[in-house]
């Protein structure tokens, strides 16, 4: 070796665990801030005021105002708060469904497993957005239909993950030992299997969140969901379409960007958590 190969790529200074914790805290603070501001902003702050119609973004109105003179920043915040609420409820329900169904598929009879697999194929076969439209229609359109729709259609991939995880744990020798010791299936589920799928559940929940929020926005954009005067991001964007040609670009740009950032934040958090929990990818 005339010249020894020296390639040096030092890792970032802050270690990943700390980094993830910081991300978590920042994210929770942002989420709490949005939720609180959604509650605190009085509704008269977003009532029409024709003295400030169609103002482009400025220091006073960073997101501008709309054709009725409503402050777009405040409307966006209210919209995000609503998205967070819908996203939280819907993905919670969906994650619980996924865990129950996945665990049932893995621990139940062969027949049940096949039936659940078939059910997953069924849910995934109808284009997701079309299924959401159908469910929303079944519930007479409106917020309830939206939440139900998102809750009952997002569990499939997490259910598959949980099923695989439970199957893998079930084949471990210590489960066999536990069974020999006379422990019941319920006891084993509670003591051995549940603690193992808890991380999967948390990560699945966090990663489901971005999808739930995006679908909420898509459905409101299409006109399913809330009445038009409620400030949901989808509705804001849908309304803005009428004013695009008039040059009021800020009506569409900023609310959408805020939504993207919120989604991105949760997506990154989920990925960070997943990497922490999965040692195979933790080194990347």
């Amino acid at each position, binding site marked *: *070796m*005339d010249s020894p190969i020296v*390639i*040096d790529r*030092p890792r970032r*200074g802050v270690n990943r665990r700390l980094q993830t914790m910081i991300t978590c805290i920042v994210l929770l603070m942002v989420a709490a801030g949005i939720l609180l501001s959604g509650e605190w902003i009085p509704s008269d702050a977003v009532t029409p005021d024709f003295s400030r119609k169609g103002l482009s973004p400025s220091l006073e109105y960073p997101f501008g105002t709309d054709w009725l003179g409503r402050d777009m920043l405040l409307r966006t915040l209210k919209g995000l708060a609503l998205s967070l609420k819908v996203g939280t409820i819907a993905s919670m329900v969906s994650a619980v469904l996924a865990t129950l169904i996945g665990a049932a598929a893995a621990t139940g009879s062969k027949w049940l497993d096949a039936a659940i697999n078939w059910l997953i194929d069924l849910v995934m076969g109808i284009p997701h957005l079309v299924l959401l439209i159908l469910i929303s229609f079944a519930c007479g359109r409106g917020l309830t239909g939206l939440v139900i729709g998102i809750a009952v259609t997002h569990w499939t991939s997490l259910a598959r993950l949980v099923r695989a995880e439970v199957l893998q744990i079930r084949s471990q020798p210590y489960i066999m030992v536990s069974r020999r010791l006379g422990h019941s299936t319920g006891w084993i589920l509670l003591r051995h299997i549940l603690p193992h799928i808890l991380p999967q559940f948390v990560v699945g929940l966090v990663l489901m969140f971005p999808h739930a929020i995006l679908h909420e926005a898509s459905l409101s954009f299409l006109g399913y969901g809330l009445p038009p005067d409620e400030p949901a991001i989808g509705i804001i964007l849908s309304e803005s379409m009428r004013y695009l040609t008039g040059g009021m670009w800020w009506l569409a740009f900023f609310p959408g960007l805020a939504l993207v950032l919120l989604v991105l934040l949760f997506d990154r958090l989920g990925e960070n958590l997943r990497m922490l929990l999965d040692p195979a990818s933790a080194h990347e």
Partner: protein
Amino acid sequence: MIDPLSLLLDVQNLSVSFRRYQRGLAQTNLNVISDLSLTARAGEILAVAGASGSGKSLLAHAILGLLPANAMLSGVMRYDGQPLNAVRQKQLCGSEIALIPQSVTYLDPLMRVGDQARGAEKSAERMERQREVFRRLELPLPSERLYPFQLSGGMARRVLFSTAIISDARLIIADEPTPGMHLSQAMEALSILRELADAGKAVILITHDVDLALNVADQIAVFYAGTTLEETPAADFAAGPDALRHPYSRALWRALPQNGFEPIPGFQPYPEALPDGCLFGPRCELKTAACEQETPPMRTVRGGKVRCVHAA
């Protein structure tokens, strides 16, 4: 005894270490090969024999320039009298130096084996040569149209051997070519290596099976914890413990089934916790204070080389 003209590969004091980062910026070097020396000569089989986990595969990777980016190398390697550096490794690998890998996972699962045996070079002669080599290795002609998953273990092994023979390389490194084989299959594989050596190639046979290697090897390099403790003609191994120079070699000899099957007490040190001085020190019955002071240099003793202060 050593013909300088036949000397093809000369490795002197080769060390390989990996940089690792633990918690934040703390950095450690993991020595996987330390101060290793060996020589391979045309027309001979050099068996590098040692227990599993002693870093033998990394030796092959170091010679071929396949170490990952976080590996650091020091020492001198010479091929055919010239230093073997990264540039030359790129030139010589595949044409002058060939690797025979361990298992079928070294074949692309989606490519027909004939194509893989020929390699990237495409020509009528190459095709002719591949068919000729397949014939020689008793691989039926239609097998070149098969995919790796369709091969039996023995066929896959012969396909892997064929890659080295087709390339017509002068130095062939066979990395554990026999595990998982029946004795007859293993002997057949080794006899191919013997033929190659008899045809003037230099062969390095990396193996954990000293017993099997003794059947074909000319030289044995006894490998332990990332270094060579002794380089000896195979005849000395056959002759018995008195002909050997290093206490570990003698212990290896006694551990062979026909010589008492006597296990060696203790265990090989991990790269994280290498002992000071002689690497075999902690398990050696001859250990003295001198053994702990420094790594014993390689000395020539009775026509072989040994790394032990007690050898005479």
